[in-house]
């Protein structure tokens, strides 16, 4: 028996891979739930109820999916060009605080139709800026961007913490470190009355479609894929590697910054240092589960949101720590990696 590299991957296999990976991750987490002394199937049933059991929980799941789609797209776009942007968490926070600062100090008086697009652009630009620095370090000094983007997450969070402790502190928040709120005109329109669901999820899905078209139909899309598949070969074929990576970084950082902007303008209206329960890191899992495909990101983000929202409900009723959602999501990254391996190779006798 030996392994042989596949020349071609059938579509059914590509689609089945994440499904198998998620099922395997759920089975492995099931062992942990059983170890905690709870009936496994009942726990999963409660997770589904927690995510979809009522109008409230369904809208919460969809609300949670929006930032995950954006950070997932951020990772997918970057990873496709083999730009290892692990800094979505920091870029998200920088986008969020930029929006809060701009709306509360500068643009608050503008009407929604002008203010909202302006703020979204500013939030995205903040995310871009934070990714351009590590990319510059990579292109100029050959510094691995994985470590620098990871380290910048901590810097960005401390920077936000400093701002909401000082110049951007909300004086009416009873001493809590939280930023001033964005103007009412900056809040994204709701999709459904009496819920938190806002148009952020539509923005994210539209972006997924646009990115898919750009990647599959444009020269830039081809160049970014070439940069990822074989950088040396891409350069040989005339792809401007540096310029391509800068564009990819702008899109990736911009998407992560947008995730922060959308979360503030759609849900919270202000920034705290627990704005994101690790959306940036979960975005990596989302992107990998999606096989780095922009449309797959939408589905993978939904799965992740279901786990997080559902596990909260399950945790309250069954006494299983809600961290089980984080464990399952992390495990699904590992199982997806293994599953991908078996789609690249096949076993020959």
């Amino acid at each position, binding site marked *: 028996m030996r392994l042989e590299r596949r020349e071609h991957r059938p579509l059914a296999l590509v689609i089945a891979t994440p499904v198998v990976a998620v099922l395997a991750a759920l089975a492995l987490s099931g062992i*942990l739930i059983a*170890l*905690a002394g709870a009936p496994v199937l009942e726990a999963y049933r409660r997770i589904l109820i927690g995510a979809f059991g009522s109008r409230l929980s369904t809208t919460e799941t969809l609300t949670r999916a929006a930032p995950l789609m954006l950070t997932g797209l951020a990772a997918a776009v970057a*990873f496709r060009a083999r730009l*290892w942007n*692990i800094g979505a968490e920091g870029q998200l926070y920088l986008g969020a605080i930029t929006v809060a600062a701009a709306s509360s100090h500068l643009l608050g008086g503008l009407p929604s139709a002008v203010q909202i697009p302006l703020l979204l652009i500013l939030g995205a630009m903040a995310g871009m800026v934070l990714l351009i620095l590590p990319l510059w*370090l990579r292109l100029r*000094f*050959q*510094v*691995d961007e*994985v*470590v*620098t983007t*990871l*380290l*910048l*997450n*901590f*810097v960005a969070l*401390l*920077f936000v*913490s*400093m701002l909401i*402790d*000082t110049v951007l502190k909300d004086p009416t928040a009873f001493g809590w470190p939280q930023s001033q709120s964005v103007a009412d005109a900056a809040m994204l329109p709701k999709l459904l009355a009496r819920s938190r669901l806002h148009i952020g999820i539509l923005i994210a899905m539209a972006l997924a479609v646009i990115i898919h078209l750009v990647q599959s139909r444009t020269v830039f899309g081809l160049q970014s894929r070439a940069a990822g598949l074989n950088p040396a070969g891409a350069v040989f074929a005339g792809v401007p590697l540096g310029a391509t990576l800068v564009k990819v970084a702008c899109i990736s950082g911009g998407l992560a910054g947008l995730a922060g902007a959308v979360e503030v303008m759609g849900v919270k209206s202000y920034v705290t240092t627990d704005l994101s329960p690790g959306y940036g*890191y979960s975005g*990596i*899992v989302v992107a*990998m589960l999606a096989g780095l495909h922009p449309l797959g990101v939408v589905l993978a983000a939904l799965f992740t949101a279901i786990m997080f929202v559902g596990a909260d409900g399950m945790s309250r009723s069954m006494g*299983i*720590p809600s*961290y*089980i959602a*984080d*464990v399952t*999501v*992390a*495990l699904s*990254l*590992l199982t997806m*990696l*293994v599953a*991908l*391996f078996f789609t690249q190779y096949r076993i020959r006798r």
Partner: protein
Amino acid sequence: MSTLFDILASAGLWAAVLRIATPLILGTLGALLSERAGVLHLGIEGIMTFGAMIGWLAVYNGADLWTGFLVAALAGAAFGVLHAMLTVTLGLSQHVAGLGVTLFASSFSYYVFRMLVPVAGTPPTITPFQPLDIPGLTSLPFFGPAFFAQTAPTYLAIIAALLLGLVLFRTPLGLAIRMTGENPHAAESQGINPVAIRYGAVIAGSALMGMAGAFLTLSAFNSFFPTMVQGRGWICIALVVFSSWRPGRALLGALLFAFFDGVQLRLQPALNGIVPYQLFLMIPYLLSIAALAIMARRARVPQALMQPYRRGER
């Protein structure tokens, strides 16, 4: 200026430097060993978190401190097996596999901790390692409290650095490890099994990472809380580059780094109200990035780092 001088002249600073350096030394050595064999190990942050949790939990449940330390090392080694399976056997992307190990190990730590330790207002504590009394040295004026009032794991970390340097550069095993990191195909032609070497280096390195985490809960603090590792693992990865993959320089790098950290911790109260404390807390991360920018091009990277090895496939 006088504040700075007072800080430098206090024995407390130098004791703190050694204390801050210890987890960095152990973690950097672990990552270095793994990378010398050709495997980037971004599982470090999660393994340190798990080591901190499981070591503390063992002691909290009645084990003695050294058993806790050992449990953390073994748990680290177990995650090392996982990382080696993903990156060596399957040859998956070392970046993504390592991040996956970190995400899994840290969320698993929080899950186990929450499951076994009930929520309480103040986190439960243990009695951590006490400073060793070294006859003749600890009682020295200034030098005693500055350099010889550490807990046992700190001395262990320093010895480990020297030992790893010796093994890597003075033994056939070290040659085999370095050769596997430079060119596994050439290593195999010399009768070395690159797969076994990589497994061994990743597992032993992960055990060191587990110990690095355990130092936090068994010596530096006395309780566990989520996010306590605070990016120390990533700093270790930066220190490996800074050290040019040499254990001796890794030791010096970790000490230098801890020195800056110790000084900023002591400057913080002096400048309280003038400079936001968050700016001080950023220093370690910015220093790491600066160190990477300065050293990355000069450093000689193991040539086969991040390249999976498959027999008969190039």
